[in-house]
């Protein structure tokens, strides 16, 4: 069962981390974009 | 197109004949690979005999990467670029020419490697037809893919590390099919060999076609 938990955990953590990285990158890009425009 | 192909092929081959890069760099590398494999797997005879087909194809594939680099480098020199532009060469013809030149060089290397394998690894081939066919078909696919990926890899800086990473996964089927065909040739397994020859043929035809179609768009800057 621990293997199952490990599998679920790895999946969730990885997807979560990637999602966060996307959100952070997107925010940063948008901030830069706004700066360039003004 | 065919005239351009002939032009490019003879040029590439002539450059090779004069500079002898293949002879002095690629062939020694291939031989070296065989030796290293022997160190890794030998010296027991059984292991070498069993591993021989795989080792042959591995040595060939790694050498192919060097070939691909070389073929690309030939196009990259400013003089060549200038000449190609001035002559208005048909890109498809350029591709065919380069692929043909590379094909011939690959076949020569295959023969040398084969001799090495037969002698050093004590391999006996029962079905030469399958073996020769596999070598020719594989050379077709490998040469096409090499010229194509050489065109993809762009400038020198990145090419050295990038080309292997791009090219080798793609030619994995050639490795698998080639090794199996070699084993079939050693064991005189006719039907089985035929199937793997089919894979090599498909690969060769597909990549030749893709090359003719896409080389032009890739090379235009």
């Amino acid at each position, binding site marked *: *069962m621990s*293997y*199952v*938990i*490990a*599998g*679920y955990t*790895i*999946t*969730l953590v*990885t*997807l979560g981390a*990637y*999602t966060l990285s*996307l*959100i952070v*990158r*997107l925010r940063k*890009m*948008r901030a*830069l*974009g706004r700066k*360039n425009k003004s | 197109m065919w005239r351009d192909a002939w032009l490019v092929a003879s040029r590439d081959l002539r450059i090779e004949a004069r500079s002898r890069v293949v002879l002095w760099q690629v062939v020694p590398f291939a031989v070296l690979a065989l030796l290293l494999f022997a160190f890794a797997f030998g010296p027991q005879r059984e292991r070498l005999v069993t591993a021989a087909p795989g080792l042959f194809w591995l040595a060939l594939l790694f050498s192919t990467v060097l070939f691909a680099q070389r073929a690309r*480098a030939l196009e*990259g*020199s*400013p003089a060549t670029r200038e000449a190609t532009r001035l002559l208005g060469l048909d890109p498809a013809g350029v591709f065919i020419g380069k692929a043909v030149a590379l094909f011939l060089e690959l076949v020569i290397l295959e023969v040398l490697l084969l001799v090495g394998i037969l002698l050093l690894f004590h391999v006996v081939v029962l079905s030469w037809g399958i073996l020769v066919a596999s070598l020719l078909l594989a050379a077709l696919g490998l040469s096409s893919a090499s010229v*194509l990926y050489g065109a*993809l*890899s*762009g*400038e*020198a*800086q*990145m090419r050295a590390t*990038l080309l292997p*990473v*791009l090219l080798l*996964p*793609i030619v*994995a*089927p050639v490795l*698998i*099919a080639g090794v*199996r065909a070699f084993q079939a040739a050693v064991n005189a397994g006719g039907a*089985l060999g035929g*199937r*793997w020859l089919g*894979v090599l043929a*498909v*690969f060769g035809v*597909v990549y030749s076609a*893709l090359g003719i179609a*896409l080389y032009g*768009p*890739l090379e235009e*800057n």
Partner: protein
Amino acid sequence: MRRTVLRLLGPIALVLVIADVIMGLFVTPPDVVQGEIVRLVYIHPALAWVALYVAFGMAALCSVLYLWPRTRSMTFDYLAAAAVEVGVVFTILTLITGSIWGRTTWGVWWTWDARLTSTALLAVMFMGYLALRRVPADPHVRARRCAVVALFAAVDVPIVHFSVIWWQTLHQGATVLNSNLSPTIHGSMAWTLLLSFVAFTAAYAWMVIARYRIEVIRHSGDTQELDAAVEARKAEGVAL
């Protein structure tokens, strides 16, 4: 209307994934034969589906659309790149969860069965695509190169797949390893399985859109940066 849908996609995907996890871990019963291990079926196949078919298929399709003169547009290049990057994440997860499943079922962390091997090779091809993407070049040149790589990978994968299957089965003979262990599906298990596919596809969709947006913003900006990159590349070419 479209904006609302896109806005909601993220939270919806999140909810679906969490629902899948809860159902998978707590609500569904253990399998008669495989016991608790069957719970992996609520993540692994869906991950594989997204990685191998959705992500890769999308990357290949967008690449073809980019290469085809009539439909050529940087949009497709950005979409392809987004699909590949997200695809790599899902592919690696597919391999990890597949490996864990193999460990629990056969006691080994890896087997050279057709699926795992082809997936591993696909992962390498994806990463090659991403590596190529990082090479500084004119955006259109880069787009063309990457599209060709994706196209070749798409053409190659079926060839690889069949080669590996034949390589495997013809060699192994009696022992045919099948990573597609199908437990007896019924009731809540079937629904949860379906849920997993929907959930992970939704998550993928959100991620690709986000990644695509990043790419668009990144390239809508400085032409200065672009010109500098082109100059640098030209300099490299002359140096050779």
